[in-house]
């Protein structure tokens, strides 16, 4: 029986450490993360498809004492495949990636992604040189992915196969990019003499 993404995200972010930083990829992944809690340590990427892995890398490199978690979808990850090489090359030990893989472009009508066929994202990450990778299709396997993503020495990469299903959009989350950035930096950095 397929896993449901809202149950997955609830488990992943249950007992969330307050110092965890979460980058959420565009579309349903951002709604997923916001559906648990609109935490000021969340940065919801509202567009620029393919960029969320690079954003998470930049954050992980500059905040090595903080755990950084990227939650995104298979479409966003496929567009950012090259960044898996850049991440592995930099090797941030504080970065975990979880891909909610519904094998579909869920926001645009459910067209198939390449992961419905032969493409194995975890194998690509392993080939790039990620230390640990995993694919989960059961709740038990998913638990191991949560633990790896939140605490194993990074960079680590987990794929959770989820059902292609319609879930509510969480439109109440902040969507103004300037506000999101300011809130995230104030929460993380406090007052700085740099411009926000």
């Amino acid at each position, binding site marked *: 029986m397929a896993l449901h993404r809202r149950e997955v995200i609830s488990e992943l972010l249950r007992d969330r450490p307050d110092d965890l930083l979460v980058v959420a990829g565009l579309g349903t992944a951002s709604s997923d993360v916001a559906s648990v809690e609109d935490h000021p340590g969340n940065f919801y990427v509202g567009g620029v498809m393919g*960029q969320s892995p690079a954003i998470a890398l930049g954050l992980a490199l500059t905040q090595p004492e903080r755990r950084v978690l990227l939650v995104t979808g298979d479409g966003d990850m496929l567009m950012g495949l090259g960044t898996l090489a850049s991440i592995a090359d930099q090797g941030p030990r504080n970065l975990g990636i979880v891909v909610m893989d519904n094998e579909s472009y869920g926001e645009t009508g459910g067209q198939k992604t390449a992961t419905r066929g032969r493409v194995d994202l975890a194998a690509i990450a392993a080939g790039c040189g990620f230390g640990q990778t995993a694919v989960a299709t059961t709740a038990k396997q998913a638990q191991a992915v949560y633990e790896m993503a939140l605490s194993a020495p990074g960079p680590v990469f987990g794929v959770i196969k989820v059902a292609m299903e319609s879930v509510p959009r969480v439109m109440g989350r902040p969507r103004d990019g300037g506000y999101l950035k300011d809130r995230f930096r104030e929460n993380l950095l406090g007052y700085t003499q740099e411009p926000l």
Partner: protein
Amino acid sequence: MSDDAPTWPAELYEMLRRHNIRQVCHVPDAGHAELIDRCEADNEINVTTLTSEEEGVGLLAGAWLGGQRGVLLMQSSGVGNTINALALPNICKMPFVTIVSMRGEWGEFVPWQVPMGQATPAVLEAMGLIVYRADKPEEAADSVDAAFKIAYDSGKSVAVLLSQKLIGAKDFRAK
């Protein structure tokens, strides 16, 4: 380093230091070779070699979220790869600086470089970037200085174009 080696790459490096640039990411170009070498030799600067230029836009946005300043070094042919990603610093009102070594504009011998080189200023401006240009060695460091100021003090996205006149057609990496 020979006496006639250009000094502007070293001046650009000093400008990066002066503005506390901690993250340098690039898809390499001969025009940036000396600056990249100097940054890689600096323990205060983390250098990321990208697979494609648009990654640099995301990486620097993440770095700014994490509290560090950065710069993206690329060739004009890479500018086209970054266009949609440039919505990120724009919509989030984040500072963003790129230094672009120009091809396809002045005595270019590779025809494939010409279309993107000719379009570079227009497409950057279309995405809302402020575009500075350095044609002479003495303009390079000043332009980069001004770019960091308006980016990091005023929250803008800026590109500094190092013209092919400045860089020259051949490998100028100082030995």
